[in-house]
């Protein structure tokens, strides 16, 4: 008999997300030019940068919605570009929130939250509904469970989409400009939900233009421009005392 291998607790050894030498090009257009990037478990990392800087592409490579052209992506130490890895299983542990919400318009809120739980996690209907109601309560929309997405405001839709991702009990969450499509007065509700999540210790990668959120909630801030990481560090340092010329130019425009 061999002794059972001692496995490290998930997240204690490898970073939640580890990106090494990542390149991505669409045709001749090279969008990512060798990115090294990591998110430790329990960290909130915000990625900022001008449009076209490649920040959304980087985020979408993390769960391979975009296929990397070269480089390595490790999720909790597992190479997700390895053919032997079940990509769908990995994705089910990575919650994703889109700029355009992407709720399923033909299903009501509750069914939006239970569909993947049942088809991917194989949960029973009762269990899926119970978890859906919990997460819906968490984002403050319990009373909307039988509404259709079209009848919700943008802010409510985005909170439902966060709840949909949370219902899968993910290890980490990816946010792709979650507030960019919202009316200004609705941004606060969504950011409040994200802040709660962060305080509960959720690992988060957030592509955003919300500098206030990045400063207040982020453990690390990454500035990207032209397909490379230009500067990274503590949010307060990067925002108040940017070292790089391009960072200074960008921040002077948005702050």
């Amino acid at each position, binding site marked *: 008999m061999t002794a059972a291998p001692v496995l490290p607790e998930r997240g204690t050894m490898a970073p939640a997300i580890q990106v090494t030498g990542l390149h991505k090009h669409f045709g001749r257009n090279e969008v990512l030019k060798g990115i090294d990037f990591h998110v430790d478990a329990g960290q909130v990392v915000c990625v900022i940068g001008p449009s076209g800087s490649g920040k959304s592409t980087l985020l979408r490579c993390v769960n391979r919605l975009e296929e990397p052209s070269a480089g390595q992506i490790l999720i909790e130490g597992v190479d997700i570009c390895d053919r032997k890895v079940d990509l769908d299983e990995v994705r089910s542990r990575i919650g994703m929130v889109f700029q355009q919400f992407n709720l399923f318009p033909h299903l009501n809120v509750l069914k939006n939250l239970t*569909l993947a739980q049942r088809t991917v996690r194989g949960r029973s209907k009762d269990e899926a509904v119970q978890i859906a109601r919990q997460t819906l309560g968490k984002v403050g929309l319990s009373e909307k469970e039988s509404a259709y997405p079209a009848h919700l405001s943008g802010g409510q839709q985005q909170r439902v989409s966060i709840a949909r991702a949370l219902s899968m009990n993910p290890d980490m969450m990816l946010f792709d400009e979650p507030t960019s499509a919202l009316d200004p007065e609705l941004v606060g509700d969504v950011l409040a939900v994200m802040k709660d999540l962060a305080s509960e210790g959720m690992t988060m990668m957030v592509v955003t233009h919300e500098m206030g959120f990045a400063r207040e909630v982020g453990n690390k801030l990454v500035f990207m421009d032209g397909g490379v990481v230009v500067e990274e560090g503590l949010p307060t340092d990067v925002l108040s005392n940017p070292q790089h010329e391009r960072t200074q130019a960008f921040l002077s425009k948005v702050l």
Partner: protein
Amino acid sequence: MTRRERAILFQVALYVALAAGIVALALVADWPTIRENFWNKGGVDWADGNWGDLITIGMVNTVKYTAIAFAGGLALGLVLALMRLSPVAPYRWLATIYIEFFRGLPALVVMIFMSTGLPIAFGWTPPGGTVGAGLIGLIMVAGAYMAETLRAGIQAVPKGQAEAARSLGMRPGTTTVRVVLPQAFRIVIPPLTNEFVLLIKDTALLFLLGAAANERELTSVAKDFLASGPSAGTATSLVQAALLYLIITLPLTQLVAWLERRQRRSVR
């Protein structure tokens, strides 16, 4: 004369022309002859005349054949549409060749080929006799048209929908069946209903293949009443058939309008 006065005068002229046309038609038309030829009761009460066979045989079979052709065409069209969107290139080629081929042929040619050509060429008759063979031909052509409709509907579903489903870990098949297709079907309800109405009318082509008395669809029954029955020698049975076709098709177009209204309410 001001512009407004000219406009009013023009409208009055239009109404006068319309009224004159109606009066002229009423005076010139030979109403007894028209009635004799287009709505002939054949000397007996009309309820005992053509309506029985027209409805219990013709209309029932027309509805039945349309339903079969539509269900078959939809199933075939769905397979072809998914093949056309397949990541496997040979599937795309096969589907494209099939669709382009059968959309380019008259339905009648395919139907005659299935019912007559196949038996002559291979000594094999498709199941269901002449009507069955004709329906298979109709399905083959309808499937090609519906494939294009369904493909357009599937492609009209925003990419973000599949991305959201995949990001939750759903498999490609589950994503297609549970997320993409339900939305695609809503998008194609109006064009598919149009397809259905066209099929109702295409079942009349079965008349040209011939069928046993109780297998005849509406047009065949009406055509046979031109030469026999109480209104023989007049066009009455065709007028009756036309009314029956409208009884099927008009509610359908109303149904589509209602479905579209309901859809607008529940989805965006």
